[in-house]
């Protein structure tokens, strides 16, 4: 069983406590945009996802814990979590992800 770091509980918890909740950072169109949006725009918002192979920004839900949603960077090939961060904070840049990955490897080497 692998563990996921929850940014709200601030601890590593078993994966079975979490649920996957789709791609992160998809912004819902605001009230002004909505009436002028075409069906195509809507379907793009609702259904079309990047489906990235590699490091993917996605939402997770700690439903059997603090009951909060948070964002995570997970590698869809290796299933390794690079980092997790609180909902509402900006998308992590490639540089931040690189740093997090290096710290993870360094931490692992220590133990």
């Amino acid at each position, binding site marked *: 069983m692998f563990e996921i770091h929850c940014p*709200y*509980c*601030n601890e590593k918890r*078993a994966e*079975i406590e979490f649920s996957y909740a789709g791609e992160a950072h998809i912004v819902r169109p605001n009230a002004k945009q909505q009436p002028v949006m075409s069906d195509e725009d809507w379907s793009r918002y609702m259904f079309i996802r990047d489906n990235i192979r590699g490091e993917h920004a996605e939402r997770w839900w700690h439903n*059997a*814990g*603090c*009951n*909060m949603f948070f964002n995570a960077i997970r590698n869809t090939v290796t299933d390794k979590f690079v980092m997790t961060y609180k909902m509402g904070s900006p998308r992590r840049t490639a540089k931040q992800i690189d740093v997090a990955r290096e710290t993870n490897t360094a931490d692992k080497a220590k133990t």
Partner: protein
Amino acid sequence: MLFDQAVDIPEIFKSERVSVTLIEGKARYNLRVKAADVTAFKKSTGLKLPSKIGSSSLSKVVSCLKLGPDEWLVIANSTQQKKLDKVFEKASKDFICSITDISHRNIGFEVSGELAAKLINVGCPLDLSLTAFPVGKVTRTIFESAQIMLLRTGEDSFHVECWRSFAPYLRDYFKRVMTTRY
């Protein structure tokens, strides 16, 4: 009447090293309060709401457990229910918050004895050593496929709370483990 009777705990559950009993006569409330209101809310209700996720303020009369960033579970003796109802009625008018009486939704088990942590670890992956899970720590988690709330009340005793409909499952699971292992 509370619904603790929905689960009858027969004979079993008493071995030398671990025992499971039903916790009866409790009133329970689920609170959701905005971070900005917490200080005023505490003053108004007189509740000792802890501020760190996973921590609790325990007492024999009213215990407050923090489960999430804005979520608390209040467990009180049912003798306090009328008083708390009044306190919360006033608070719900003064604050934008959610207060739900869940006394009948949950059922509590007390698991105690030197093997208590081992019994819980059969279905729950948390590290229950005293360093990682000290007395007073609380969390929602999973026991096999049922969601539970786990609280350490003493070095060798735990309060396990689950939804009423999950209680027979939990009881039978405990029973099976205890009859086959201990």
